[in-house]
């Protein structure tokens, strides 16, 4: 009740024009969504490669992928963000210097996408591996028997068929990606949580701003859940329903 009364008196701080901080929050949200999209796409690309590697790769590839997924799933994202951010910036700069170029500063967005993408990739590998295993073996064998080359088989048979199994897991990963962007606030990147903290500590209206940001995150997750449900229906088109 008390918090509600406090929030009501500071609601005008959320206005979009400059005395209010609404525009700041929305630009933070846009940054968050951009990073989440980039990280999800990168994670998906790594995941497809990783899943195929884990299933059909040489023993060495399988071992290396096992090490990658184990480490990423055991070390906190926050620590990985710091390690990868410093290490990658350092390596890129040393490479640039040895080739005679000047040092560069890697942008926050690129670093965020890269780091979260590597994290997402480890989880996506496991999700997609399970989904590929769920594709009926007869379908793949039939395609092989018809003499389909491996890439065509992946494109026409395996990937479309596994999509309906993979979508629930991928939807979960997307929600994790949107929430993990908040971690970039700790390294000072201007995404939603960081902008919110900035606004809140300037105006001292902590409740109003953190609640507002919470609502924005919730809306994002509700909208994405609806979209993924539509996507799942589309991917299941032509399949018999599991319930019977």
């Amino acid at each position, binding site marked *: 009740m008390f918090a509600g009364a406090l929030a009501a008196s500071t609601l005008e701080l959320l206005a979009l024009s400059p005395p209010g901080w609404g525009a700041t929050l929305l630009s933070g949200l846009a940054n968050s969504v951009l990073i989440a999209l980039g990280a999800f796409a990168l994670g998906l690309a790594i995941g497809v490669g990783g899943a195929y590697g884990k299933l059909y790769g040489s023993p060495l590839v399988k071992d290396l992928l096992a090490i990658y997924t184990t480490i990423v799933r*055991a*070390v906190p994202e*926050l620590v990985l963000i710091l390690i990868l951010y410093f290490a990658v910036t350092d390596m890129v700069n040393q490479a640039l210097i040895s080739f005679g170029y000047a040092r560069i500063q890697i942008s926050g967005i690129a670093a965020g996408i890269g780091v979260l993408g590597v994290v997402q990739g480890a989880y996506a590998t496991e999700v997609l591996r399970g989904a590929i295993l769920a594709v009926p073996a007869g379908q793949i064998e039939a395609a092989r028997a018809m003499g389909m080359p491996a890439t065509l088989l992946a494109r026409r048979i395996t990937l479309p068929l596994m999509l309906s199994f993979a979508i629930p897991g991928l939807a979960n990963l997307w929600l994790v990606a949107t*929430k993990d962007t*908040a971690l970039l606030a700790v390294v000072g990147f201007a995404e939603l949580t960081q902008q919110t903290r900035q606004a809140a500590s300037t105006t001292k209206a902590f409740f109003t701003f953190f609640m507002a940001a919470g609502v924005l*995150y*919730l809306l994002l*997750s509700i909208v994405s859940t609806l979209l993924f449900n539509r996507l799942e229906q589309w991917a299941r088109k032509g399949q018999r329903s599991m319930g019977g």
Partner: protein
Amino acid sequence: MRALLVPRRLIMLALAVALVLWCAVSLRWDWLGNPKYQALIMQGIWNTVWILAVTMVLGMLLAIPLGLAQAVGPWYLATPARVFCGVIRGTPLLLQLWLLYYGIGTLFPSIPWIRQSELWPILRQAWPYAVLALTLSVAGYEGEVMRGAFKGVPHGQLEAAKAMGMPRFTIFRRIWLPQALHRVLPTLGGETVLQMKATPLVATITVVDIYAVSSRVRQDTFIVYEPLLLLAVVYMAIAALIVLLFKWFESRFPNKAA
């Protein structure tokens, strides 16, 4: 052990040992000899571990009623429980933590009777907010898991208990809850590792966990990588311990149905 004795694994092992040796020799570890940092590191690990253990236990205690309310509760209990789980799972933990710490934490000093109460010395510190936020987070995620577990217990078991004339609470205590917990045991190990990965967030509200200690070392000594590597190793060791612990638990309570 047999699985390790393949040539490619031996080579990888040798490479790993070489990498560790290289790290030990050519990186700077002299700060580890400083007793001040040794004490800090031990304190940090201890804080991380107890926060993890306490929040998992408290969170599970909250998750049981939340799951029960969602599975079989009347609508006036099920709806709030569902909304709670949705909100916790739909917003970042960092945001919840900062809302509690900066929001409630700045509200309390303005209320006189809280300032004068016995609890004030505790409420002035950061760790109660950290424990509260992490506990609520566990409750939200595991509440959803427990809902599925309660629903998954075979109906025949409950009907048999009812037919034997067991009172409702005894059915819950002896039949329903143990079987539901047994079902979530394999998932719970993974969830505990996820919770461990969330604990470094408490460093952002000045709780001195192992992550905060490593940041402190980096600020004091300007050494960039070494404290982070130590941090990664510590977290991997804790994760391995959690996995082993849950394996042992599962072997103590074998799945009779399987």
